[in-house]
């Protein structure tokens, strides 16, 4: 819908109307067709086999034990479409803003778009209000956006994120998981989502301990992804031939930081070396 005013190049009235600090609400009001969950999709064929899927995300806290100093979020690099590998280097872990990160499992196209909108939502709020949203506020916004995607989720195009951030008010790292209906659940210590998550969760339970430092937490995250890739065909292991490593990020009081590939290469090589020679299951004494 273009009004005469818009055609003349002036800002549409909707832009000038005082109202919400939410970009998503503004979009729903002004251009609802741009929202990921609102697009009409033909019914019938379930989307699961037609669109690439992103799989395993792991998250864990480090520091502590009372108040974790930060969080590590990591994702493998494989996207699958049915039985095929659709991508070997897809990214599933993104900075949401300076002090939080989001990892996504599920329908890749919609998830990536949802992350883009979520990043924008947080930045928009920050610019309009001149202050950051609280970490709970950010998690609630994400929850609302997932709920908006429910119609597509019912057709097989579900998005299941894992949200991790540093809570500036409480001075601690926190984790949140979500279900397809937008249900929000705070997780403690560690969590994993996606098809390989059952295996990753087992590894996390065994390897995580209170008071891990950041570097050890990164190693635990990589090892959990390794175990997920070992048993889940949809999760990619570290690709030593192409030198493609998982995307691993830490968030603490310093903000979001992606772990450099060179550092990850060292971690991966150590894990692979530990498991070589009959210890492929990663036996610990």
């Amino acid at each position, binding site marked *: 819908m273009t009004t005469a*005013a818009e055609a*003349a*190049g*002036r*800002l549409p009235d909707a*832009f*000038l109307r*005082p109202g919400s600090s939410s*970009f998503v609400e*503004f*979009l729903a009001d*002004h*251009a609802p067709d*741009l929202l990921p969950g609102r697009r009409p999709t033909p019914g019938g064929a379930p989307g699961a086999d037609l669109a690439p899927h992103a799989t395993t995300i792991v998250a864990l806290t480090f520091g502590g034990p009372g108040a974790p100093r930060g969080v590590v979020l990591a994702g493998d690099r494989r996207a699958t479409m049915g039985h095929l590998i659709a991508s070997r280097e897809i990214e599933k872990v993104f900075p949401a803003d300076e002090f939080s990160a989001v990892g996504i499992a599920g329908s890749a196209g919609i998830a990536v778009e949802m992350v*883009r*909108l979520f990043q*924008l939502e947080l*930045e*928009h709020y920050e*610019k*309009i209000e*001149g202050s950051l949203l609280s970490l709970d506020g950010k998690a609630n916004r994400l929850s609302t956006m997932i709920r908006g995607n429910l119609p597509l989720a019912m057709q097989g195009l579900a998005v299941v994120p894992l949200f991790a951030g540093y809570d500036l008010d409480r001075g601690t790292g926190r984790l949140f998981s979500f279900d397809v209906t937008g249900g929000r659940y705070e997780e403690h210590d560690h969590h994993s989502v996606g098809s390989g998550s059952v295996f990753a969760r087992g590894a996390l339970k065994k390897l995580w301990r209170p008071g891990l430092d950041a570097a050890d937490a990164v190693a635990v995250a990589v090892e959990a992804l390794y175990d997920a890739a070992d048993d889940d065909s949809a999760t990619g292991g570290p690709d030593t031939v192409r030198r493609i490593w998982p995307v691993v990020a830490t968030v603490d009081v310093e903000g979001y930081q992606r772990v450099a590939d060179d550092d990850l290469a060292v971690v991966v090589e150590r894990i692979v070396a530990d498991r070589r020679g009959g210890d492929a299951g990663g036996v610990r004494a």
Partner: protein
Amino acid sequence: MSMPFYVSPEQLMKDRADFARKGIARGRSVVVLAHDDGIAFATENPSRALHKISEIYDRIAFAAVGKYNEFENLRVAGVRYADLRGYSYDRADVTARGLANAYAQTLGTVFTTESKPLEVELVVAEVGASPAEDQVYRLSYDGSVADEHGFVVMGGQAEHLTARVRDGWSEGMGLAEALRLAVRTLGAVSADGTVVPAGEERDIPAAGLEVAVLDRRRPRRAFRRLQGEALAGLLAGDEN
């Protein structure tokens, strides 16, 4: 039978312009200055929450003088415009020129069609990869746009202050030097609104200033507020 009285378009526009100009001149000035690493914005504003200078998008900032409710509305509209455009195309497709055009059309339409013009003056600035690629647009209450180079002063006593900045500004000056020039210029307006001669400027403490920069060296979001000790240090003469 009543006669519809006639007012010439010239008179009508002149009255409106006088009205808007008077409103704008009442407010405190904002100084915008290009320097080697970006664009600096400074104004005297003791409030920490009600801003006259703010971020619009990655490389774009906004500064305004006049009526707060009117420019705040335009600022929010600008953020919505930029975010919507960046979301539907790409972040690289959001430009200060596009935003300045949208503002100009909006201000122009309000000026000619509504009963009261907006009592605001705006600057939309975008920092480029080099000083030559910086863009600074100054927009008036009637929708006129000027493409400025180097510096802009808006608000009360703008003409006098512009003359002062012109004397002190030079291409490629550093941030600290540019800010000192800006603060000296702002201090030239005394409490009763008159301009004092050079050398007799008021000292404005860092806490009474609102200062921000678009820093071209920053990776994505170039906008950064300068407050507290960082600002006081720059004004006192420590280079960065």
